[in-house]
């Protein structure tokens, strides 16, 4: 009775985008990304990269206790954001997604205030660690630190959109380490049962802090799991901005057409240590680190645009100078910004109708006389 059951086999090993550089300009054109948008994408990538680099300087200078980086993943981040509609879509990034939030409108000053814990930092009022993004205005759903919880929030935002008959799409970003969490599975399952307009975008940089992919999962491509939910899954070279853009656009179109979720896995590189508290040389081969640095998406995209004539060397130089000036000014503004007042600690625990801030103090309440 061998014919009486089906062995579910691993799908073909996924092939990542490989150097077809000559074709890429055409693909871009086919993707319908106009030149102005291409320049905007490059600007966003570069701004994120330069802002990120400044954060490390601040860290080394003792001004920022903690930095976690987007470096190496800007291509995947910007390629996907630009495929979506910032007027109506929902963005659910994780800590790695500096280029996502900057593409959506976060500024260097916002970021520097955040790494230095200054008042006016838009994500959390300087309560969260840096890179825990969130902004209602920018349609960025707030993240805590607990890995992969956001997958369910993204699905929930999509459920609400669907209930109200809106055309909005929700995109959720998560690392490949995050896919091991139960919430990742529960999110894909819920979304697929209800055919919700959500894109699960995995940034697979092959490491979760020090844990390499082969200790994280027994498959080459996490995108293969899409089949287990009856949804389409794709693997894409995360350094290939236009290909990421095209796949994300397609996924968004399907979602808006009521065809449900898509799982996209972008193969990316983590060019820095996990964070400023980590030293990846302890657990990664030097050769691999070097190799990945040579495939950096930012210069690659730059060269692509140069080759295609979308920008010139002068444009690039001018852009860098402009960004540097902005970053310098932002650094200074952030350094001069005050800290929040200590008593702000007691605010925003509850909304209206909740206890008064003063009732939340941890101090003795007994009427002891004397000074508190």
């Amino acid at each position, binding site marked *: 009775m061998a014919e009486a059951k089906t062995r579910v086999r691993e799908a073909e090993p996924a092939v990542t985008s490989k150097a077809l550089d000559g074709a890429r300009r055409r693909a871009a054109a086919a993707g319908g990304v106009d030149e102005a948008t291409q320049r905007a994408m490059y600007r966003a990538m570069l701004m994120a990269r330069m802002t990120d680099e400044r954060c490390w300087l601040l860290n080394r200078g003792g001004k920022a206790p903690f930095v976690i980086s987007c470096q190496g993943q800007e291509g995947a981040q910007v390629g996907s954001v630009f495929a979506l509609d910032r007027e109506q879509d*929902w963005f659910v990034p994780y800590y790695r997604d500096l280029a996502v939030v900057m593409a959506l409108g976060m500024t260097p000053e916002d970021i520097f205030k955040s790494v230095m814990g200054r008042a006016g930092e*838009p*994500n*959390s*009022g300087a*309560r*969260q660690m840096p890179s*825990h993004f*969130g*902004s*209602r205005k920018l349609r960025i*759903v*707030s993240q*805590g630190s*607990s890995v992969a*919880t956001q*997958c*369910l*929030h*993204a*699905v*929930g*935002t*999509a*459920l*609400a*959109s*669907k*209930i*109200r008959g809106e055309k909005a799409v*929700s995109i959720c970003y998560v690392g490949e380490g995050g896919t091991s969490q*139960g*919430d990742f599975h*529960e*999110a894909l*399952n*819920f979304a697929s*049962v*209800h055919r919700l307009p959500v894109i699960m975008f995995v940034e697979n940089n092959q490491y979760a802090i020090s844990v390499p992919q082969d200790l994280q999962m027994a498959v080459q491509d996490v995108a293969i799991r899409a089949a287990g939910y009856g949804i389409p899954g794709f693997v894409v070279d995360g350094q290939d901005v236009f290909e990421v853009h095209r796949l994300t656009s397609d996924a968004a179109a399907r979602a808006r057409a009521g065809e449900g979720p898509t799982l996209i896995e972008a193969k990316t590189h983590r060019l820095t240590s996990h964070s400023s508290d980590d030293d990846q040389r302890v657990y990664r081969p030097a050769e691999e680190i070097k190799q990945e640095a040579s495939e950096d998406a930012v210069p690659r995209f730059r060269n692509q645009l140069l080759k295609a004539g979308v920008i010139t060397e002068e444009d690039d130089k001018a852009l860098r100078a402009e960004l540097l000036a902005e970053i310098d000014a932002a650094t200074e503004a952030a350094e001069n910004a005050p800290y929040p007042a200590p008593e702000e600690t007691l*605010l*925003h*625990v*509850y*909304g*209206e*109708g*909740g*206890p008064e801030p003063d*009732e*939340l103090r941890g101090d*003795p*309440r*007994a*009427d002891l006389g004397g000074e508190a």
Partner: protein
Amino acid sequence: MAGLGTHKTVETSAGQMTYIQAIQSAMRDEMERDESVILMGEDVGAKGGVFKATEGLQVLYGDTRVIDTPLAESAIVGVAIGAALNGMRPIAEIQFADFIHPAFNQIVSEAAKMRYRTNGDWSVPMVIRAPFGGGVHGALYHSQSVEAFFAHVPGLKVVIPSTPYDAKGLLISAIRDPDPVLFFEHKKAYRLVKGEVPEGENYSVPIGRARVARQGKDMSVFAYGLMVHYCVAAAEQMAAEDGYSVEVIDLRTVKPLDRPAILESARKTGKSLVVYEANRTLGVGAEVAAIIAEECFEYLDGPVVRLAGPDVPAMPFSPPMEEFFLPDTKRILSAMRRLAAY
């Protein structure tokens, strides 16, 4: 769990409802009033919930607003959080409070902290309803009282009504609240407890306010949920047999506690007993006792006494052990008498 799932319709007189009818009525009223109210959980649709609390709601509001979810509590809460962020007011049903633990991270790390971690930019108006408590042969995993875990968590509100009137009024408040509210319903009260509920009238009961369930002057007893009824019964017996006047405070909200009400009663009577069926150690009663110990010292005529469930994992199945676990009127009365005699 005799009668946990297959229930006859309960006869009630005009203006009267059972505790579970009051809960269902609150949900219906709010779903009728506000399109953004949705309901999600396991078996809440066609089956109408394992206790029938949501019976008929899917017929009325469709399966886009009354959603039978996959069997995954973290998803139920996590998806509800996302929906709340995007304008809905979800009511997430956890089938038994005992099964809320898979959603602990979503509740504690996410829902509770969303407003705070965004400096007020985002908020999560949602209700998590769950039946709790023992006395129905539900054994270790269908009898638990889990409120203390959540009463420790800033950003959450935890409501536990004891009467149909409060059940409806508080659930309405919970649904309209701007923050996440855990709403625990005592499953033994569902059909046992009946009471007046104004019909057709739109009323609500404020979260965070205790209620004097029985006025008294010689001793204060603090309780919530089913225990309130046992405490009132014991207090009546004390009055009748001992001529001793016990005040029973129904806490109603255990997070945030109604500190002024606790202090007022404890100071007035000078003797305090706290009764709860959760595990004794670090149950909600520990906080009540600690508040009294700290803020009523000069008024106290005796120790602040606790009567609670034992520190064993949960209520066993076998009837003698289940009874041993659960505080009842007799044991409450005995504790009252001993404290009175102090």
